[in-house]
Structure formats: C-alpha cells, structure tokens
C-alpha cells in the first residue's frame, strides 16, 4: 500500500516548484540560496574545532585520539546515548499511543503533562534528582522512619541515564504523537478486517508507520545526550561533553578540548549516516485525498487504570518531583527571610531572545526542509546533516568557536543579541528542521504543482501553499526551539551582550553559590514561561483534531 504511493510521488517530485525541460531537478533560487548561506554558517564551529585541533601538531592530535582514556570516553558516551534513546522510546511510544488511540482516563491532560518535562533544564533536573533521590536525599528522609538508612547510589551511569531519560523522552513523545495522528486509519482497519489481531496490527502495521516519527525524536534524544553537560557533570559520568568541559575549565588549554569536540562531530556524522539509512526513501503523505477520519478508539477495559498509573508514574518523576522540590526550596527560603530580587528583566530578556531564535530557526528550517524533502540529492542531504552537527556539540565548544570568530572577524557583531541568536539558531536548528520536515512530508506535492500550474512563482508557492499547509510542523519546531533556548546556558553566558541576564543565568548564578531559594524562583518562572508554548502546542493540536473529526462526521 505504502509502496504504491511511494512510486507515484517520486515520479512527480521534481516538478512541484516547477522547473521546465532539462532543469527539472534543480531547486529554485529561493530554496537553495538561503540553504547555502545556512550551511556556511553551520560550518563555522566544526571548522574552528578542526583548526584548533591541529594547534599542537599532528602528533598531539593522534596521541589524544588514540589514548585509552579517550576511547573509554567514547564507549561511555555511546552507551549512555544508546540507553537513553531506547529508554525514551519505551516510555514515549506507549504514552503516545495511549493518549491518541485509547480511552485512557483524562487522556488530554496526560498528553499535556507528559510533554511538559521538556521545559525543565537538565542542570536543574539533575540537581533536583540528586537532592530528592540521592543516598541521603529527601526520599530517604521520608523513608527513615521505616528504617531506610541509605538509598542506592544515584551517581554515575544509572543516575545520568535516568535523569536524561526523564527530561528528554518528550522529544519522542511529540514526534510519535503527531505521526500517530496523521496515520491513515484505513491501513489499520484493513489489517483488522483481514482478521489480524490488535497486537499484531500494532506491531506490523502501526509501528512501522510510526518509524519516521520515532526515529526523528530518537535522533534528537541521542544527540542531546551527547551534548548535554549539566546532567553528566552533576551525576559524575564521564562523557565527551563532560571531558571537554573539564579540559576547558582546568587547563585553559583549548587544543585537547577541541580534539575531543572534533571526535564528537565525527561520531555525530556516523550516527547520522546510520539514521539516514534506516530512514530510507519512504513517503508518508496520503496517496489519496480522503481519510481525515476518526481512528477507532481502543477500549482498554480494566487496563485503563494500569495505563493511567503508568502515565502518573512518569509524570510524577519527570515533572511533579522537580517542580515540587523547587517550590520547597522557594518556600523554605522565603520563610527563612530570604528576599527575592525582581525577575522582570531576566524574564523579558529570556522570552525575547528565545522568541527571536524560534522565529529565525523556523525561517531557516523551511528552505532546508524543502530541499531535503522535495529535492533529494547529495547536496540536500549534506545540508540537512550539517544542521545536526551544531546540535550535538556541547554549548561551550560552539560558544568559544563563535567568540573566536566574532572577536576576530566580526567585531561589529561580537557580544550583540544578533550573534547570540545566531548561536542559538546554529545550535537548535535540527529541532525546527525535524518538525518542519515531518510537516512537509504530509503535504502532497500535487497541491504545489497545481498552484504552480495556476501561475504562481516558486516563492509564491512556498509562501502561500507549502508553508501554510506545513504550518503545524513549522510551529511545533519553533516552539521546541523557543523552550530549548530558554534553558540554554553556556552560549548565553559567553556570547550575550555584557550585562544581559536571562532566567537561566540567574538560576546558574544562584545555584553555584548555594542560594537555593534564589535559584528556585527564576527556575520556576522559566518553567512556567516555557510551558506556555508547550501547552498551546499540545492543546491546539488536540482541538484541531477534534474539529477535523467533527467536520468529517
């Protein structure tokens, strides 16, 4: 069934932005020129790392790369990334299915709540997990009367994997939910009509069709895990990003850190190549025009409450626990007479730069996604992959690359909001890209062709047909970039205009000096502000569905 639609679409592909004759395969100017600029920008950090890596000569380079410790770090990074990715899929796919397809009690509420842990900065989450679940943390304290003296160590691999899983599974949840909603119900119906059982249908029909969604979310999780510094450093697990930080912090010698960064870039390329193979050439838009119909709701029966319990467990650990601890810190501090500094400036600054980053990233993602989806080729896939490199790099490596570039080659931009937003966009473009790409995959090329046939130019088609139709994906991407930017720390510290403070820098500055009450207030505000786009996104998503359903009934 899917294969049929594949062939038809592929044959049509080159035409939609509409060259004629021999030029059919070339993308229009409005697509490839911006994409080219974006690629050049994306190349800045890796090029910087390569130059720095060879500072100490090839000898030092080879020595560092082949060092036994480096290989251990490589193994640890891979193990953590793999574990976290699998764990997030195991959590997110069931929740996605339960909230979209079943009569799970309060399913709308779970859909929103389960997505929200994404707004918790991982350095805050890590800190909170330690103080709550550490060997003698709050949980142990409340269990003491039952004779629990100590909980098992949370430090090291288990704690790092747990924390990263809890605060990144929403990436997979969001992408899987949207794939599930857009899945043509006729496929599953056909399977059931042919007498295939519900489980078998899920594993053989539904799951394979969800693959692009799961893989897109999983890729974000994998690369986030590789780049995250907060969790692995608080929980003491030596991955690439932690080693890179240690090198920068301790030795002020940027060469070894750059070499490790470059290795991380290579690792990312390897992961992207594997991912690219698994993605294949499938098309996921519907082959025919119909079918925005209601999916059959699966009745869970007695399992309803088990399912709700599962959702409750995940949400408690990933959302209620961190928020609860932050509120506890805040109240304790306020009762202790701690006065709070006003947060307006920091909050406005955070929202302002995050909003700009989200807008610019969404705008940049469109040409790259169009290129990747409609004009597949070596160049388009290279640009797309390039975008993911900046995402996997730890913020410190990216930020120093831009410090070097800015101070030496663009002093007019150095320490301006412009360069800061530029850094965010390079860093988080893949989040916008993934969602935009998914949105675009579901727009049928024939609609674009029709607009082209009616005399619209390529830019017109892009602006008035493609972008609006793909807008749910574009908006989702922008929302993701917004809330990731809200949390970002190293690039903000190093690249923002002098004197510019955000909620994230306030949290950082207060926790570093053990002012927990003062850290709790900006952290909570940060969570609240980021929750708004997240909430709108999941709610809007839900109502749109309902309208669609009502309309078709």
């Amino acid at each position, binding site marked *: 069934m899917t294969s049929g639609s594949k062939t038809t679409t592929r044959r049509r592909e080159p035409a939609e932005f509409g060259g004629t004759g021999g030029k059919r395969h070339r993308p229009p100017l409005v697509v490839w020129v911006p994409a080219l600029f974006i690629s050049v920008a994306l190349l800045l950090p890796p090029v910087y790392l390569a130059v720095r890596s060879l500072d100490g000569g090839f000898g030092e380079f080879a020595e560092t790369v082949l060092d036994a410790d480096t290989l251990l770090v490589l193994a640890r990074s891979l193990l953590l990334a793999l574990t976290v990715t699998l764990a997030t899929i195991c959590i997110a796919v069931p929740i996605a299915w339960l909230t979209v397809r079943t009569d799970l009690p309060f399913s709308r509420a779970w859909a929103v709540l389960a997505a929200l842990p994404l707004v918790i900065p991982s350095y805050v989450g890590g800190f909170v997990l330690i103080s709550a679940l*550490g060997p003698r943390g709050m949980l142990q304290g409340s269990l003491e009367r039952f004779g629990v003296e100590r909980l098992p160590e949370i430090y090291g691999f288990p704690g790092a994997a747990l924390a990263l899983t809890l605060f990144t599974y929403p990436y997979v949840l969001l992408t899987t939910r949207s794939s599930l909603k857009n899945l043509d119900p006729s496929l599953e119906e056909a399977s059931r009509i042919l007498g295939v059982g519900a489980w078998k249908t899920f594993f053989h029909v539904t799951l394979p069709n969800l693959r692009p969604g799961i893989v897109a979310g999983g890729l974000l999780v994998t690369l986030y895990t590789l780049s995250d510094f907060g969790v692995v450093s608080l929980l003491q697990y030596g991955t690439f990003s932690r080693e890179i930080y240690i090198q*920068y*912090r*301790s030795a002020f010698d940027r060469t070894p850190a750059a070499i490790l960064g470059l290795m991380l870039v290579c690792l990312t390329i390897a992961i992207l190549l594997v991912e690219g193979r698994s993605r294949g050439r499938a098309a996921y838009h519907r082959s025919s025009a119909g079918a925005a119909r209601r999916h059959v709701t699966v009745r869970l029966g007695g399992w309803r409450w088990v399912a709700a319990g599962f959702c409750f467990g995940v949400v408690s650990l990933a959302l209620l626990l961190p928020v609860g601890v932050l509120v506890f810190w805040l109240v304790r501090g306020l009762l202790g007479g701690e006065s709070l500094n006003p947060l307006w400036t920091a909050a406005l600054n955070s929202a302002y*730069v995050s909003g700009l980053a989200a807008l610019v990233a969404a705008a940049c993602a469109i040409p790259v996604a169009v290129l990747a989806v409609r004009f597949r080729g070596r160049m388009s896939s290279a640009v797309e992959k390039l975008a993911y490199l900046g995402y996997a790099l730890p913020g410190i490596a990216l930020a120093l690359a831009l410090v070097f570039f800015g101070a030496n080659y663009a002093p007019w931009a150095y320490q301006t909001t412009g360069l800061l937003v530029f850094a965010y966009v390079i860093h988080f473009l893949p989040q916008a890209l993934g969602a935009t790409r998914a949105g675009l995959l579901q727009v049928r090329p024939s609609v674009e062709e029709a607009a082209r046939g009616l005399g619209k130019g390529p830019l017109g088609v892009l602006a008035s047909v493609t972008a609006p139709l793909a807008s749910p994906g574009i908006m989702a991407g922008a929302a993701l970039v917004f809330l990731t930017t809200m949390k970002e720390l190293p690039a903000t510290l190093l690249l923002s*205009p*002098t004197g510019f403070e955000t909620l994230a820098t306030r949290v950082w500055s207060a926790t570093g000096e053990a002012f927990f009450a003062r850290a709790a207030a900006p952290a909570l505000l940060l969570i609240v502000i980021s929750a708004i786009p997240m909430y709108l996104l999941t709610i809007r998503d839900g109502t749109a569905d309902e309208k669609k359903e009502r309309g078709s009934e």
Partner: protein
Amino acid sequence: MLLASCGQSSTESGGAGSSGDSGSTGSSGTEESTGAAASGGGSATGDDTLVIYSGRSAELVGPIIDTYIEESGVDVQVRYGDTAELAATLLEEGQNSPADIYFAQDAGALGAVSEEDLLTELPDSILSPVDERLVSEEGEWVGISGRARVVAYNTENLTEEDLPESILDFTDPEWDGRIGWAPTNGSFQAFVTALREIEGEDVAREWLEGVQANNPTVYEDNTTTLEAVAAGEVDVGFVNHYYLFRALEEQGEDFGARNYYPTGGDPGALVNVAGAGILNSSDNQEEAQAFLEYMVSEEAQQYFADETYEYPVIEGIETNEELVPLEEIDTPDIDLSNLDDLEGTLELLQGTNVL
C-alpha cells in the same frame, strides 16, 4: 541590522537590572554610554564604560559593584560567567577583548591569563594596601577577598575531636567511603597545586592515591559536596569555608555540617584569593585602576567580610563573629603566584585517575 539595534536596547535593560537592588539608580547614566558601546561593536572604545569579566557571581559581587557605580558615577558593565570559561574567552579574544578588568574566583585562572601576557602591571596604589602574600609576584593581579579551604564535617556523626590534624591523614583506611570531594572544581585544583608546591610532587601523588583508595564520592562543586555532607551522604568534604554560612543563612542553624580547619600550617587550610587584574588591551586603564583601588578600600573590604563571609585582604577590617579569624587559622606559607601550574595539577589528577 534589525538584530543589532535590538541588541542595544536589551543591553541597557539587562545591565541596569543586573542585581535588582540598585538597578534603577544606575540606569540613567547607563543609557547613552551603553548604546555607544554596543554600536561600537563591544570592542574597547575610548568611552568611559568600564567592562568587567566577572568569574564571581552577581549574587556575591553585584551589590558592591552597584555601590561603586552609585558613588563614582562611572558606568560599569559586568559580564558574569564561570571563572575558567571567561579565562578561555579572554584567551580567544586576545587583543580584541572588550574587557577592561578580569575578576576571577581563584589565583590559578589569573595566573593562566597573565601567563599569556594579557594583564598589565598594577600601580602601588592598588598593591600596597594588600597583604603581600595575596598579590601576584609580578604585580599583575591583586587579591580582593580571601577564601579558606576547610574540611566540612557532618555534625551528627562527628565532632571536631574525631577529625585528624592534617588533611594528609585522610588517606587512613578509617575514612573509607566517608569522603566527598570535587576534583573538577577550580578551588580544589588550586589546593592540589598548593599541595604539590608545599609538600612536593610525590606527597601530592601519594595523597591523591591514598584518598582515591578510600573510595571518595565525587561531587560537582563545593555546593553539592557541602549539601551531601550535611545530608550524611558522606561524613567529610573538602570545600571552601564560606559555603557553610550561605547554607546556615538559608537553611537555619540545624543545617547538618560545620567547618573544620586542619592545623599546623596545613595545605588543607590554604587561604586562596579571589582577585582581579587589568587587561593590557584596555583603553580605560585609569578607570580600571580606580575600580580596583575601590575594591581594596575599607568600604569594599568591609562588604566582603559582612556579606560574603570572606576574608578581607587589608588590615583593620572587622570580620563577622561567626568567621574564624584569619590569625587563628594556621595557613601554609606559600606564594599564591605559584598556583598557576594548573597544567601540572591536571596531569597529576589524570595520572592518578582522580579525573
């Protein structure tokens, strides 16, 4: 272009509000000069905006800088960040740095920056009031407040009598599984550098290996180490002295940890400094000097003694009564300028698998 102009407006609002308390007072004077700085691209232009890269947090030094702005009328812009990250930034920026002053949390970072010839020699007006053990030998940086290393211990499980005289004794097997430390932390590394300097490379290595054999729990920084000690996760932790006072203030007197100062000129009771130097690329040498003069003045030193519980670097300052006076601590006799060999320390830490 749009982005650049937005940058200016947010610089102003960000700068004025940087610590909240006196933000409004500074803002009228801030506006035009800040605008000039932003359109000048942040490069050190000839205007009188003083740019400080501060590795000390806004929570700690924001108020005293605000007081200075108020009293002097000079416009000061502070870039807060991590001490080491800002040092790396300064090294990347080189002569193009917009910074006039580097205010660091430890002497080692100042050493690394001055090693690259980025700092100027300070005049006597700044150096002479300060205890000469707390300034750099070449006069390229000055200590602004003192920070003592201590052993934080859990008060439920231990009393001071249970603790050994010297930090070197923590290699004893009786401490197996009871120690917390933060080897990635700058202050800890400065302490190890001091240990190498005072007792020699071999003793330092033996000590690291000995503690390592006692399976210490590794923490991220002083804060997390101290919290773990108070919670009883470990019995002792190697930290700086003032984190305790912060915790007492916020969490109350029943906070479960206290400070212990090893005796006998022990490296475990090293007094290090937070300090500052002036970048030689700065066009504001005079303003920068005036600022540092103020930071070592009685008024500023009294602030550090009262508000951050750190040690003043000049004589005649009344310290907080909860603070063990500097005279009563047996600090090792050491030239802090020699604490810049972080590279050697890092090698040792990696060689002993501590890092």
